[in-house]
């Protein structure tokens, strides 16, 4: 176990197969905790977590179409990088990203 990992505060989310391939699920959080988190799975089984709010007008990214390492916001079709939360140029904006760990079949997110 590395030193960095011990400092993480992993929260268990679900099994990998609970996430649809090229899709997402919503991780529920109160507004006071910062609001919902979207957990994505792409075609390579890489899992990403972003705040479920598009930097543009707050659209729920969890509902968007996932492709490559991006998601298209369902409201106005901004593309957001799943790795960084950055809007794809020429749009400008960034949504919060959360560290993800897939341990065997188990998916964990650090929600801090």
């Amino acid at each position: 176990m590395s030193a960095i990992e011990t400092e993480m505060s992993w929260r268990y989310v679900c099994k990998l197969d609970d996430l649809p391939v090229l899709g997402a699920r919503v991780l529920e959080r109160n507004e006071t905790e910062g609001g919902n988190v979207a957990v994505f799975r792409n075609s390579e089984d890489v899992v990403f977590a972003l705040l479920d709010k598009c930097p543009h007008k707050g659209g729920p990214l969890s509902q968007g179409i996932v492709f490559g390492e991006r998601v298209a916001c369902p409201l106005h079709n901004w593309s957001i990088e799943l790795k960084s939360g950055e809007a794809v140029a020429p749009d400008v904006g960034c949504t919060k990203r959360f560290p993800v760990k897939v341990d065997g079949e188990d998916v964990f997110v650090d929600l801090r």
Partner: protein
Amino acid sequence: MSTVQKQKLAVIGNGMAGIRTIEELLKIAPDKYEITVFGTEPHPNYNRILLSPVLAGEQTIKDIVLNDWDWYKDNGINLITGKTITEIHRTRRELTTASGEKHNYDRLLIATGSNPFILPIEGKNLPGVISYRDIADTEAMIDAAKIYKNAVVIGGGLLGLEAANGLKLRGMDVTVVHVMPWLMERQLDEKAGKLLQASLEAKGITFKMQAQTEALIAGESGRVAALRFKTGEQIPADIVVMAVGIRPNTALAEKSGLQVSARPGGIIVNDTMQTLTDPRIYSVGECVNHRGTAYGLVAPLFEMAKVCANHLAEYGIGRYVGSVTSTKLKVTGVDLFSAGNFQGGEGFEDIVLSDPMGGVYKRLVVKDDKLVGACLYGDTVDGSWYFKLLREGKNVAEIRDQLMFGESNIGDVGHEGNTRAVTMKDTDEVCGCNGVCKGTITKAIKEKGLFTLDEVRKHTKASSSCGSCTGLVEQLLMFTAGGDYSATPKMKPMCACTDSTHQHTRDAIREQKLLSVPEVMKTLGWRTPNGCSSCRPAINYYLLSTWPKEYVDDPQSRYINERAHANIQKDGTFSVIPRMWGGETTADELRRIANAVDKYKIPTVKVTGGQRIDLLGVKKEDLPAVWKDIGMPSGHAYAKALRTVKTCVGSEWCRFGTQDSTQMGKDLERAMWRMYAPHKVKYAVSGCPRNCAEAGIKDVGIIGVDSGWELYVAGNGGIKTEVAQFFVKVKTSDEVLEYTGAFIQLYREEGWYLERTVHYVSRVGLDYCKKKVVDDAVNRKALWERLQFALDGEPDPWFEFDKARVDTRQFIPIKPIAADTVATV
């Protein structure tokens, strides 16, 4: 990737075509090559089209630079300016510069552009005699205008007139010498040419028409001082600008043994932009000859650049198949546009509007119901629209009588058409959907060097939503980026993931019996692993409509509304619209709806335009329970599918009713519901010609008359109102089902994704649809049967989750659990 492995790409020519190719290449394969660019001019890449506004004092050199020095540095490109390549040693793959330096390449791109043609007359080399091609020429003219008085421009073509206009604006007395009877004879017919001459004369420019120059005569200082015609007449000339045409600059290529065309000149390339002689050597731009044509305008160059980059990146797809070009003169205050074959001739039909006093002249040339050429003078607002019709080869038979009066008259612009892009203020809104003003668009075009509609859409969002302002945005591009703004290829790819068009994709799916989204992408060479939000839903629909019962629907390739079977709202909640057959409901249904509204605290209940009830603000997790409690079928109000069948009360109640329109509507809706389509489909049935169900603006409109039913198709009440066109009259309600069902099935099988019936019909022509559906009974029955086959057993997604492949996990949010209660980390 280490630099050692990179191949070396050398580019000869630092102009628009060469650098555009590099830009395209960097987009798709940024690390593939170590790139070196050689340029003779001591400038970075600039927009040559805008030299005229610089000469006219409307812009500066700085304004027209497309890629500044930093761009080359940032992209790791080795730029060598002020050096001319004098030799290509093809077997050694080595270039030699004028000063003797050697440079190796793995692949070579020749983009040497063109040279001005210099008349072989006495005095052609005198000081003060220049051509009009680059920044140096432009600066020479600007300097001359400060000291001298008399300017002569030889050549009354596009460049010559722009030079004349600029010199005049800088205070010189300008005479244009032209050998032909009228100006711009390659772009204008005689009438338009004469009108143009009159308006330039009004600006103070003098013309010598059908005049042949014999010699240029030196003055005492040795500089040119006069011009002598073959008639012996002589006129003073302190500066002479030769603008009599360009020739592809192929000297280097010829010397290196590459095959070059004798007439009209140019390095011969194939459809992949490779030179015919040496597959390691590519060529793009004005220096090439493609299928016998050498282009001198920017749009074709950009199309070439895209194809060339694709092959340099070794994707190996995309072909350049030639371009249709258009011309616009950049002389402020003179509106002129021409495209295609505007001269007409035998077998061509002319539509002409001529108002010489008003300074307006328009000529449209039509062949086989298609617009093949346009020449506009004085009023060019519709230039881009005509150009679009021309490029897409649209059937214009049905709009022929209104064609001359332009797009606004057809009801296309959505801005009443009289707001000309040029006269708009910077603060005027162009795109109402995205709130984009004219100033924002022109600023982005200038600062970011945008050239195409797609680029403007990406950067500003203008015209990217409903698209009704596309014409205006194209005009702004025309005026801001220069004349031939359009780099839209004849066949537009579906999206940036591919070079395949919608049609090509549809055909491949049918012909090669492709049965999954990944299979389509693999077969057609998609550049991205799983497409994007634009192409995947389209492919999914094409598979579904081509192979019903065989293709397994992919919900993850659908937009959220069709995945959640409800309509997403701006706050992330959803709306629910249950189906009410023909707009009829019952007390029971209303009670269940009312109960659900209370139980799930649904904030808004609204009656829709389609005679149904909309429940707005439903939380996603409540959707399955709301559907179940209401107990009514899905209204598909969220889908590209049959929406509503709107009806009037008809003969059952109405004292004017001639047919039972409500029953007809209910029968139609039961026959067609659950039907996915390229876009939404709306029906309406009226019981008499008073047409209370507004059937005239629906995809399929049915109007009952005493003797039967009149069927109308391809109406639209949305972005731009389109009146449905009369299709056929039938007697029985069974015929109504069969004829309209067959028409819709034709649209389902052939329409492009997101193409409404109105656009589909205008693309293929109403006559075509009639031929397939009305005239051909066998085909009609076959279409109708295929629709019934596709719909037979289709599930209701609100109730048959498994069969409709609804992923119910989406309705259950996950609650995070502290990790240490599950696993030790």
